[in-house]
């Protein structure tokens, strides 16, 4: 009887451990199933690039519903409408990256309107641009 009662606290610990692991499993499988925050690495496609000898340095612009994220700076649609200042911000970001820098617009499903400002700015400033559709839950890996 003493031996059997000695098992019980240990069993409690084991059962508790099992519960915790089951919980971890559920959380992990849910995050896998939902595809939340899918990590994505955007790689510049370098075929047919005229500056093949230089390395390409993308300046990422994430286009969302009413704003864009230029690197880590949030620029609202209202700020984008102030064209001169918006262009200045893009030029600064490009100059900061140095030779081979270009704009890479990552367009979320709700960000196609703000993308038009980015594309127009790239055209006005004569900056090369690439653009890619991205899902709302994509997390960029730099």
């Amino acid at each position, binding site marked *: 009887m003493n031996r059997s009662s000695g098992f019980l606290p240990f069993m409690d610990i084991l059962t508790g451990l099992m519960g915790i692991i089951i919980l971890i499993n559920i959380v992990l499988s849910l995050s896998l199933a939902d595809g939340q925050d899918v990590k*994505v690495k955007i790689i*510049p496609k370098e075929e047919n690039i005229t500056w093949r000898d230089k390395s390409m340095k993308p300046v990422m612009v994430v286009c969302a519903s009413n704003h864009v994220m230029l690197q880590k700076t949030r620029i609202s649609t209202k700020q984008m409408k102030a064209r001169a200042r918006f262009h200045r911000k893009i030029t600064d970001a490009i100059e900061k990256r140095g030779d081979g820098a270009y704009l890479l617009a990552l367009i979320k499903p709700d960000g196609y309107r703000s993308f038009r400002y980015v594309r127009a700015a790239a055209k006005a400033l004569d900056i090369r641009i690439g*653009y890619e559709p991205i*899902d709302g839950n994509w997390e960029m890996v730099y």
Partner: protein
Amino acid sequence: MRRRKGSIDDLSNPLDCFLDVVCNLIGVLLLAAIISALAVKENVYDVFTPVEQPTKGSRHYLFAATPEGIYPFEKNAAYKKLKMNPANHTAETRYFRYTREIESKRTTCIMKKSFPLITEMNVSTIMEELQRLRKSIRDNDNFFVCFNVSPDESAFRLFRLARKELWENGIKVGWVPIDPEKKIFFQKGGLEIVPQG
């Protein structure tokens, strides 16, 4: 005494067995947790993104990528029909209805609801469709394919699959985020269509 000892053994044996089962179960669960954690950690996709390529006079073939599927605009065929019969200001293709507006000198295009030609299941057939629209797809430097892509994750995924198929066949691809299910206007000075790659 013997009897009593025997009863203790009887009680501990089932407990040992149960403990074995519990420990094994914990081991399996731990293994599953490790695998899931690794799967979550390594879930990084590579997406290749090209830059816009300046083109002059390059012919393009328009497709609409919607959440339901991919539809060819068949713009050339519609314009041919409109040209052949100027009195009639409308022309229909398999998936779109084109209308020429006399005053504004622009052509509007509305999608007719029908079963999509290309879906995620048969995305490779885009090459056959392209071959139908253009007899020779060998001279792939003289033309490119452009997609009007609906602002929707399913349409984005379908576009990426179709683009991959075209890239593998050496064909340049461009795209614009636009809702093809709404009325589209074709006119000079509109949204520029440029290939990327």
